C-alpha cells in the first residue's frame, strides 16, 4: 500500500482518531514538564536576570511560526502536484495555529527585548521579520475565507503560499540589509542557541517537543474539522441535486 493512501480523507479520519488524544496528552505533558521545569527550577542568567525564562516560550514559538509556514508550503506543493484534498485542508488548518505561534513569538520577543533595548518594540531585524510573516499569514487566511469554491480556494492559496514563501525569504534578507547597523551582539541577541548553557538547554528541548506536538495535534484536529466541513458540503450538494 502506498503512503499516499493515508492521505485519503476517509483513511485519514480513521487513523487520526486514535492518534489525536495521545498527541494532545503527550503535548500537554511535555509543555507542563518543560514550562514548570523552566519557570521554577532553572537559575537566572547572570546578565539577563529572570527574563531568560522567556526563552522557553519564545524560542519554541518562533520555531513553530516558521515551521508552520514551511509545512503549509509543503502541503500546498503536494496539493498542486498530487491533488490530495487532505493536503490542502491541512495547509488551511495550520495557518491559524501559525498565526498564534507568530503572535507568541512577537509578544515574548518584545517583552524579552525590553530589559535589553529599554523599549518593548525595537525594529530588530528578527522581530521585524516575524511581523512580516504575521502579515503573510493574515493574507493567506483571508484568501481562504474569501473564496467560495473549496478547490479554487485550495489552488489559489497554494500559489499564494509559494509566491509568498519566495517573498518572505526576500523580506528576511531585505530586513537584515535595512537594519544591519543596529544588530545586537550574539551575547545579547535573541539568538539563543549560540550561548545557552545546559541548565537552560534541557528544559528548552522539552518545551520545543511540547510545541511541536501541540502543533501536530492542533493541525490534526483542525484538519479533521475541515474534512467534515467538506463532507457536509458534499452531502448537501448531493441532496440538493437529488
Amino acid at each position, binding site marked *: 500500500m502506498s503512503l499516499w493512501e493515508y492521505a485519503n480523507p476517509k483513511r485519514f479520519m480513521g487513523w487520526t482518531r486514535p492518534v489525536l488524544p495521545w498527541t494532545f496528552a503527550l503535548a500537554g505533558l511535555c509543555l507542563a514538564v518543560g514550562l514548570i521545569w523552566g519557570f521554577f527550577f532553572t537559575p537566572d542568567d547572570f546578565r539577563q536576570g529572570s527574563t531568560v525564562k522567556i526563552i522557553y516560550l519564545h524560542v519554541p514559538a518562533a520555531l513553530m511560526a516558521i515551521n508552520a509556514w514551511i509545512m503549509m508550503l509543503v502541503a500546498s506543493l503536494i496539493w498542486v502536484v498530487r491533488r490530495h484534498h487532505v493536503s490542502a485542508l491541512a495547509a488551511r488548518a495550520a495557518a491559524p495555529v501559525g498565526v498564534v505561534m507568530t503572535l507568541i513569538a512577537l509578544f515574548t520577543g518584545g517583552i524579552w527585548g525590553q530589559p535589553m533595548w529599554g523599549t518593548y518594540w525595537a525594529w530588530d531585524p528578527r522581530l521585524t521579520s516575524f511581523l*512580516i510573516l504575521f*502579515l*503573510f499569514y*493574515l*493574507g493567506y487566511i*483571508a*484568501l481562504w475565507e*474569501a*473564496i467560495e469554491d473549496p478547490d*479554487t480556494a485550495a*489552488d*489559489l492559496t497554494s*500559489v*499564494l503560499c*509559494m*509566491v*509568498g514563501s*519566495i*517573498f518572505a525569504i*526576500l*523580506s528576511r*534578507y*531585505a*530586513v537584515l*540589509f*535595512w537594519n544591519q547597523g543596529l544588530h545586537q551582539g550574539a551575547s545579547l541577541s535573541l539568538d539563543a542557541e549560540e550561548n545557552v548553557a545546559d541548565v537552560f538547554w534541557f528544559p528548552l528541548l522539552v518545551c520545543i517537543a511540547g510545541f511541536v506536538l501541540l502543533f501536530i495535534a492542533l493541525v490534526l484536529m483542525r484538519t479533521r474539522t475541515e474534512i467534515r466541513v467538506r463532507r457536509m458540503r458534499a452531502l448537501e450538494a448531493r441532496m440538493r441535486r437529488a
Partner: protein
Amino acid sequence: MIALLLRDLRLAVRAGGGFGLGLAFFLIVVVLVPFGVGPETELLSRIAPGILWVASLLAALLSLDRIFALDYEDGSLALLATSPLPLEGVALMKALAHWITTGLPLTIAAPALGFLLSLAPEAYVFLLLSLLIGTPALSMIGTFGAALTVGLRRGGLLLSLLVLPLYVPTLIFGAEAVRRGADALDPTGALLLLGGITAGTFALLPFATAAVLRINLR
C-alpha cells in the same frame, strides 16, 4: 501583445482617472505628511525618501483592482484566454500598462514633491533611479494580486492585504537607495538589489499570474 498594451493605454486615457488619480493621490499624501509630523525642514528632509516611496507605493496600490476586474466583468478576459495570446503575455502586458499609467508618472512627478519635502539635493538622481527601477516590480506584483482576487466581489481590501506584504523588499531597497544617496553614501548595492527584485518578479510572476487567471476563469 502590443495591441493589448495599446488598447489598455487607450482605455486608461479615455476613461480618465487612469493617469490623474494616482498622481493626485501621491500629491495629497505627500502634502498631508508635513501636517502630521510638523514643519521642521530638517525632520522632513530626513524622512523624505521614506515618505516618497511609501506614497508612491500606495498610489500604485490604488488602481490595482482595475487591472483585471473590468476585463473579467465584460467577458473579454475569457475571450483573451481562448485567443492565441499566451496568458503569460497578457499578464506581462497588463503589468506594463499599469506601470505606464501609474509608475512612470509617479517617477516623473516624484522630484517635484521631493522639493516640497526638502529632500537632500544629492538624493534626487537616486530617487528617480530607484523609482524607475522599483515601480515596475510594484506593478508586476500588483498584477499577480489582482489576478488572485479577480473573481471576488469585494476583492479590493483583500487585494491590499495580499499585496502589501509582498511589497516589503521593494520598499526597503528602494527607500534605502534614496536614503543612502541623501546621506552621501554609496547606494549602488541597494539599487542593484532593487533591480534584481524587478528582474526576478518579471521573470517569475507572469507565470504565476497566468496560472491564477486560468484557475479563476474555470
